């Protein structure tokens, strides 16, 4: 037999610690369909019972203002968990109980967990747990989840609910008689007239209708088929209520909930607030002068870690797959199958796994910063800088890590609670210049930008590089502005961010977070990346026997020495590339690239850059029949300097285009993974390509000749 329970609670209530403690590694992480909200499920065994735990998104309330809240209430009503475990931060009772009141309104069985009893103690809060439980009429379990205290008690209580049918349905009604009487009237109206309530409790629908909950109102109209009589009835009730209780029902209900909470807590809790460690730490890290330097220091470490510390691990993965390709290649005959296995599949898998070190390192640091409580402080310190862009402080870490690689950056947007802000950040990230674009810049700068100083101290090459990065940031800001103004119009979302107490991180939470992210990436994005990389391989490999201009086979046999043989081989490779599907695609898009001063060869190079931006350099090498380009690409620099297609303006244009054009093929599936739909990667492709073309066109035709001419 399998039973289902749900965990509900405020953000920062230690919900995930309890979820991890209950389920261990038996977790499944995904997305609720169509939204950016994460769905977490896990299992555990309870004396032969299989218990499925749904970890609801952390919310402060159950109203309809955010997708998280709508999903939380939908899951509770539609998936009908046996019992809802309401996790409460015992050091922050009043606000946490606001959600509890709303769960009570839903009329579902509840177990209350008072988590972080140690924090409450330190803060000078004494709770009479038995009395509280008596008053509420549901079990209340004190816990210190990160030390595992109270876990057994919780499990036993869950078992009692399931096996002994312990009734944990809240029965006490704490709200004023006047309100309850009116709610009752609305409820009877709904019960009598509604056609289909789809399992939603009528009392809850009545309360929400009084509160003016738009989702509930449209449900009552469309699904339950209540006509305008209901709205007339409702407005009469609202009028009576405001006459009796002196306020509109919407703010009134919030007040009544909080008054009820105070009544409940009045003789069950003693307050004696003391200054805590959090106050002392905050007075340093949020300090007027020290706040920013501390922020910069920590962010430098984060960036260093993702940018530099990951390199050796990425090299190991790279080298391993190169070795594996060669090793397995030894057993295969020269031909299509070998090419498919070595260049298609093995290098494709390597191309998926190579991003893992950055993802692991970034999520290690993010979990550490989140769990300790520094992350919201960082957002607090930096918010002012992001506000003019229409983003908030929470977008900083995702944007910063995107300079190393867009993939972990996009995955890090999960830390942004507000879904609109999350989408805006995801749309901005592709314009942040990742490290894979750097080889393209260095090649072109070395070839066309002279080593010279301006005003005695500024290095021109460095200045051009800096301008490229700044252009990326500028276009990212422009993108946010555009989408905020024209696409996500309507209600702007307020930035209200809790600064939770500092806490010691637990290894288990951090490890599980890293593990879940990696599994999600490999399972949900990895397969798609592999598929795209095999398609790319096909484009560059087929057709296998094009009509060649020279008889390379005979020429190779006639070759006198190694050098000439190499030369012929490279020429053959260049011609085969030109005649491959990718080459034909390059010709096909030439008319579009012509206005930018690019020809079909750059078309091929840019197509290959979709595999990974740095591949553009290697493809150029192949096009110029140089064979494999090594790190020292001086011969390539020589070649492109002599090519009439290139001049400083088109070279910088190419830099711009490869900066702004769509992100690499590994990024698109990650955008799908994080947004929950294919719509957003498509939007990104269309938007980035249009921006790349327009900006490059403007540069090559107007601005470039002016600046560099």
């Amino acid at each position, binding site marked *: 037999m399998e039973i289902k329970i749900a965990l509900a609670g405020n953000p920062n209530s230690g919900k995930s610690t309890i979820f991890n403690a209950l389920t261990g590694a038996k977790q499944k992480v995904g997305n609720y369909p169509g939204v950016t909200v994460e769905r977490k499920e896990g299992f555990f065994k309870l004396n032969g019972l299989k218990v499925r735990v749904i970890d609801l998104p952390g919310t402060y309330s159950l109203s309809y*203002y955010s997708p998280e809240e709508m999903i939380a209430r939908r899951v509770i009503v539609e998936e009908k968990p046996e019992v809802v475990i309401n996790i409460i931060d015992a050091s*922050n009772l009043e606000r946490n109980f606001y959600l509890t009141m709303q769960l009570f309104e839903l009329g579902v069985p509840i177990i209350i967990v008072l988590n972080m009893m140690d924090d409450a103690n330190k803060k000078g809060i004494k709770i009479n747990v038995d009395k509280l439980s008596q008053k509420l009429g549901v079990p209340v379990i004190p816990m210190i989840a990160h030390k595992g205290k109270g876990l057994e008690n919780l499990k036993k209580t869950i078992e009692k609910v399931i096996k002994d049918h312990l009734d944990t349905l809240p029965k006490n009604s704490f709200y004023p008689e006047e309100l309850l009487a009116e709610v009752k009237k609305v409820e009877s109206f709904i019960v009598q007239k509604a056609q289909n309530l789809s399992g939603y409790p009528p009392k809850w629908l009545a309360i929400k209708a009084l509160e003016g909950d738009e989702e509930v109102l449209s449900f009552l109209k469309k699904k339950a088929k209540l006509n305008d009589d209901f709205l007339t009835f409702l407005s009469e009730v609202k009028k009576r209520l405001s006459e009796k209780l002196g306020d509109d029902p919407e*703010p009134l209900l919030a007040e009544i909930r909080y008054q009820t909470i105070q009544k409940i807590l009045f003789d069950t809790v003693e307050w004696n607030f003391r200054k805590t460690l959090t106050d002392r730490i*905050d007075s340093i890290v949020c300090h007027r002068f020290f706040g920013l330097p501390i922020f910069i220091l920590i962010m430098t470490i984060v960036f260093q870690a993702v940018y530099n510390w990951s390199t050796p691990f990425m090299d190991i993965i790279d080298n391993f797959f190169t070795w594996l390709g060669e090793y397995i290649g030894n057993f295969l005959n020269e031909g299509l199958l070998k090419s498919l296995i070595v260049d298609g599949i093995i290098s494709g898998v390597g191309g998926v796994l190579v991003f893992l070190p950055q993802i692991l390192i970034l999520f290690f640091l993010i979990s550490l910063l989140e769990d300790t409580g520094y992350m919201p402080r960082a957002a*607090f310190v*930096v*918010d002012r800088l992001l506000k003019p862009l229409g983003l908030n402080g929470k977008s900083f870490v995702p944007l910063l890590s995107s300079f190393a690689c867009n993939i972990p950056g996009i995955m890090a947007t999960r830390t942004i609670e507000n879904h609109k802000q999350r989408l805006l950040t995801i749309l901005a990230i592709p314009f942040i210049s990742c490290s894979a674009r750097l080889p393209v810049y260095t090649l072109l700068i070395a070839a066309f930008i002279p080593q010279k100083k301006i005003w005695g101290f500024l290095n021109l090459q460095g200045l051009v590089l800096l301008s490229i990065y700044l252009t990326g940031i500028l276009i990212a800001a422009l993108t946010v502005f555009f989408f905020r103004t024209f696409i996500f119009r309507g209600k702007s979302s*307020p930035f209200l961010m*809790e600064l939770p107490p500092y806490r010691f991180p637990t290894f288990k939470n951090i490890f599980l977070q890293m593990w879940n992210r990696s599994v999600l990436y490999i399972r949900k994005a990895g397969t798609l990346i592999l598929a795209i990389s095999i398609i790319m391989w096909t484009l560059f490999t087929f057709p296998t026997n094009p009509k060649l201009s020279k008889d390379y086979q005979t020429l190779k046999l006639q070759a006198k020495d190694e050098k000439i043989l190499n030369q012929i081989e490279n020429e053959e490779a260049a011609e085969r590339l030109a005649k491959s599907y990718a080459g034909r695609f390059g010709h096909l898009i030439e008319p579009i690239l012509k206005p930018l001063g690019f020809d079909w060869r750059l078309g091929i190079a840019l197509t290959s850059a979709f595999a990974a931006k740095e591949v553009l350099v290697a493809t150029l090498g192949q096009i110029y029949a140089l064979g494999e380009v090594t790190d020292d690409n001086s011969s390539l620099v020589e070649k492109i300097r002599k090519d009439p297609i290139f001049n400083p303006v088109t070279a910088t244009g190419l830099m711009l285009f490869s900066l702004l054009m769509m992100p690499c093929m590994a990024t698109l599936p990650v955008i799908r993974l994080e947004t929950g739909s294919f719509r957003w990667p498509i939007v990104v492709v269309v938007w980035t390509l249009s921006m790349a073309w327009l900006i490059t066109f403007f540069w090559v035709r107007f601005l470039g000749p002016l600046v560099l001419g």
Partner: protein
Amino acid sequence: MASAPHVATFVKTVPKEEKMLCLKECTEGSVVKILKVEAKETLKKRLMELGFLPGRHLKVIRNAPLKDPIEIEIMGYLLAIRKSEAEYILVEKIKGR
């Protein structure tokens, strides 16, 4: 510490105009009583859900290093709120400059 809960703190007095000020104007360290939340719809609801109810006390802890947002303490927890949102919260000074 500010805002230790007492029952029935929601005593609604008619706000006297001259004593009213915006939360965003309050200096660090001041303790204030909420008189009114002037915001509309979503923001008002959000603020009320987070505990911004008339009659309740809150404490302004500090400004962010770049002056915005501000950190406040309400019902014993800490919250960052931008000045553009704090503008809608009308308060009366209890303690501090």
